């Protein structure tokens, strides 16, 4: 039995009808999902202390409260509510996964007791500074996309961090990642980067995304000895250079840049493992109607070009794909 205050009707003229209902659940449940129930407040979790997985996505919660007694909780999902402050989470010492995306949080705080936290999602909030994660060294996955972060800092102590997402922020410089050899995936699209730097010690990195920035020159990637996937879509790159810095990649994405020289494309021959290439919306793409044929001729090992199998004939709506073709995708997985 839980108590729920929900909004029943809202005509928009200040006439809001709420009601408090009792929600019947078995007292020994371990999972509870109340997605899109217009919940403004929910309490009496003392009656269901065994919950381990709680999802209250897409509701009207303004405050994190009344969860303190759920000490067995390992997963908490509060995505798409109206929460403004991270608080009252101290007792959830077993929490492994926390999602507070699409809320109105301005500061990362109140997480110091969550020493088992491995995955944290804070997409689309109003966070300005990366902080408050001093004790969360178990963290493996950090997602800060679509916030207002300006500086990469206070991350290098997270020795278990494998995946870091900082897309759609206001970062101008790649920094603060020294010594993070265990990092496997770094994602920085939609920022204000102009120079590729600060990546020298990320020897374990397999995938990096630098799309939608202002990068003009490919450089600073020589430390990424395990790199498999490089995303430079939607930048201002005119020249393919320093290709030896990412010799081992399987996937190169360089769509919507300023490449205009077919001689440069020949440099990609050095990439022996290259099987996936995205290069459309460059000057050399739009100026040459034999684009696909020329890429095929220069790079015979490429199997996927601009998202389509290289052998597909233009204009034919259905063309079968051989079974062995799907090995291309196996090689792309970041493990």
């Amino acid at each position, binding site marked *: 039995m839980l108590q729920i205050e929900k*909004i029943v009707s*809202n*005509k*928009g*003229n*200040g006439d*809001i009808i709420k009601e408090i209902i009792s929600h019947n659940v078995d007292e020994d449940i371990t999972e509870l999902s109340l997605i899109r129930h*217009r919940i403004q407040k929910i309490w009496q979790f003392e009656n269901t202390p065994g919950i381990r997985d709680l999802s209250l996505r897409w509701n*009207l919660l303004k405050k994190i409260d009344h969860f303190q007694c759920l000490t067995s909780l390992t997963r908490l999902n509060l995505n798409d509510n*109206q929460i403004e402050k991270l608080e009252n989470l101290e007792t959830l010492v077993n929490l492994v996964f926390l999602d507070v995306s*699409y809320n*109105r949080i301005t500061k990362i705080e109140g997480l110091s007791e969550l020493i088992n936290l491995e995955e944290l999602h804070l997409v689309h909030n109003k966070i300005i500074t990366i902080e408050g994660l001093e004790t969360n060294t178990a963290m493996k996955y950090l997602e800060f996309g679509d916030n*207002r972060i300006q500086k990469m800092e206070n991350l290098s102590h997270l020795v278990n961090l494998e995946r870091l997402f900082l897309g*759609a922020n*206001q970062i101008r410089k790649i920094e603060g990642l020294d010594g993070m050899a265990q990092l496997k995936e770094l994602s920085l699209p*939609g*920022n*204000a*980067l102009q120079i590729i730097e600060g990546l020298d010690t990320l020897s374990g990195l397999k995938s990096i995304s630098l799309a*939608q*920035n*202002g990068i003009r020159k490919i450089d600073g990637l020589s430390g990424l000895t395990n790199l498999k996937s490089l995303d430079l879509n939607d930048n201002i790159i005119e020249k393919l250079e320093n290709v030896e810095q990412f010799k081992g990649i399987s996937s190169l994405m360089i769509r919507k840049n300023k490449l205009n020289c077919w001689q440069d494309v020949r440099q990609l021959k050095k990439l022996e493992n290259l099987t996936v290439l995205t290069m459309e919306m460059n000057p050399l793409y739009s100026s040459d109607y034999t684009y696909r044929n020329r890429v095929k001729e220069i790079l015979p090992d490429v199997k996927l070009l601009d998202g389509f199998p290289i052998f597909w004939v233009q204009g034919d709506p259905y063309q079968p794909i051989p079974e062995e073709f799907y090995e291309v995708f196996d090689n792309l997985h970041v493990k």
Partner: protein
Amino acid sequence: MQAPVVTETCQTNEEGEQLVLRLRAPVERPRVTWGAGVIDNEHMGRLKSNCCCIYTPPRVWDDPSTWEPEEHETEHCRGHTLPEKKQKPQGGHGSDKDEDKGNCGCDHC
């Protein structure tokens, strides 16, 4: 009333053949229009229900004004617009009733 017809005679070098051009008024085409009983409700002060359809200009990497798009965030809803922007009440939170004034009427709430 029919438009006047203009006749023009033009002589070509080949074969001495004469060409005659005749112009006619364009044919009136069917047009859609409002019925007499239709009420124009564009400025009636109604609430809008475009919760998910707010246009966000594309992000430009070197234009900071595009980095934090206007969110149209109201008390209860993200992405909703109210008929007019209201001043926040002074002194922080008032009573529940005050807090809920001016809320939007979309399905998200």
